């Protein structure tokens, strides 16, 4: 559905007097199969939006090729546009228009009849919990409502391939979960392919078949969420002791559990990554118990995509998200 080779975008920006080249996207290779839900994960400025704008024919690549929905974005952009839907990061409706009419007009620009566009728009309003907002001005809607309106705009013509740029930014937890359901349904009910960008690890984890991690305009990793997490060695075991005197014995006990690296100490917390933690945990707890160390807490955390990001790029996603 998407085949991309060596995709590059270099912007010329001004820094004071001199002009500098900004390599927003620096040679991206990726492919997405029909019916996949693929997440594009990366920190601010990684090049996610720029890549999407090239794939949706809004921006001409500096170099490289991209075939989207069977057509080359440079050679036949109109055929690409006909096949795709795009929800941009930054809105798509005029604050002065009426919500329902914006969606219908948008559908009609794809060549579908007014009646069909209106029917599909009403359906989307119901699904996205925008009931009663048909005649509302987008300027008088809440941020989350406007975000869902953007999503209705991008889906009104039932595209085979949907690009969503940070679709859930600004949504409350319930609306987010609801939208995840709809995105999953796009594939289940309509067989659509979905390519979405996000900063949220849980979102990529919950929704995507495959994740592409992008950093500094390059793909840093591409795999299923589980396979990526397996790259991170071991689960994180964190012990919290009650008194400063217990820190050292706790560290020694954890070191004896064959962690991947020497345990890290942070105040009353001692932590390390341990492989096969299920087998080692009873021994660890028994050893602590024998030494009379009272634990204030013990936590075992499966690797998250944040850990993956840290492993792949050397930086935490949390710090810049």
């Amino acid at each position, binding site marked *: 559905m998407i085949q991309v080779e060596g995709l590059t975008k270099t912007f010329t920006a001004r820094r004071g007097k001199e002009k500098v080249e900004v390599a927003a996207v620096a040679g991206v290779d990726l492919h997405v199969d029909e019916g996949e839900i693929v997440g594009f994960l990366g920190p601010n400025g990684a090049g996610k939006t720029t890549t999407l704008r090239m794939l949706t024919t*809004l921006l001409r690549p500096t170099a490289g090729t991209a075939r989207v929905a069977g057509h080359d974005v440079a050679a036949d*952009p109109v055929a690409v546009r006909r096949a795709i839907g*795009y929800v*941009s990061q930054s809105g798509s*409706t005029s604050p002065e*228009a*009426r919500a329902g*009419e914006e969606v219908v007009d948008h559908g009609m*620009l794809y060549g579908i009849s007014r009646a069909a566009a209106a029917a599909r728009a009403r359906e989307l309003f119901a699904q996205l919990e925008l009931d009663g907002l048909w005649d509302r001005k987008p300027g008088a809607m809440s941020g989350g409502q406007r975000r869902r309106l953007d999503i209705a705009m991008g889906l009104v013509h039932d595209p085979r391939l949907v690009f969503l740029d940070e679709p859930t930014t600004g949504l409350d937890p319930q609306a987010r979960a609801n939208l995840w359901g709809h995105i999953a349904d796009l594939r289940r009910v309509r067989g659509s392919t979905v390519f979405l960008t996000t900063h949220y690890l849980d979102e990529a984890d919950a929704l995507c078949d495959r994740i592409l991690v992008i950093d500094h305009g390059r793909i840093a990793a591409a795999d299923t969420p589980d396979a990526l997490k397996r790259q991170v060695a071991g689960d994180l075991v964190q012990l919290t002791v009650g008194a400063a005197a217990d820190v050292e014995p706790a560290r020694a006990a954890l070191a004896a559990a064959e962690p991947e690296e020497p345990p890290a100490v942070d105040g009353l917390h001692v932590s390390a990554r341990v492989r096969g933690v299920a087998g080692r945990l009873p021994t660890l707890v028994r050893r602590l118990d024998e030494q009379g160390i009272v634990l204030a807490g013990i936590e075992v955390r499966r690797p998250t995509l944040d850990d993956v990001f840290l492993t792949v790029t050397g930086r935490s996603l949390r710090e810049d998200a």
Partner: protein
Amino acid sequence: MQFLRQLWIVFRRQLRIALRNPAWVIIGLVQPILYLALFGPLLVPLAGTFGADNAYTLFVPGLLVQLGLFGTLFAGFGLVAEWRAGVIEAERVTPASRTALLFGRVALNAVQLLVQSIVLVLLSFLFGLQASAPGIVLGIALTVLLGAACACFSDAVGLLSKSENVLAPLLNSVSLPVLLLSGILLPITQPQWLKTVADVVPTKHIVDGIRTVFTGTFDSTVWWGSFWAVVVFAAAATWGARVFQRENA
């Protein structure tokens, strides 16, 4: 067909938004009234010095062109606001012709100008305008053509710059000399160098053409005015369409 349908969708959307804004409608209609009421008393006593029989026949054409220039040159501000809201990008990602996205918007400016021109001319009759009916029709047509050209130009500059701060000084520095050199309010008779400079300004010929045709005369001045209106429109429309079709915008 496809193209006209897309143009219509864009036009209808713009029209709906405009009509729902009562301030826009009222200002649009009050503008020609103000022009007549404020400029009229000022200019009528001067008409004789230019050898005109009827003061309103002399300066209503000028008011028409001024209305055409000023209303439409600011279209780009609306476009920048729409671009900021993400509307332009959302429309550009549809298969609709990008030229239709421009012309649908320009069509609204043209219709708005047409209504204002008709109001202006009708009111002028109350003040004592005497003009030939075919002349009025051609005069208004040329005004609308010029206005559409300005809207194309303004929208294209808006899309290129995406900034009010670029648009405002640029449009001001275009509109003021054009306004003065075209003899929009008063025909230029003195000095000679100013006349020479004015001769290369297309809008001067358009104003002269409308002025002449209002008297019922269809001579070469009229044809030259029409010629320049068509040329200016064709140039602005071609350039605007090209800007809208650019892949990076």
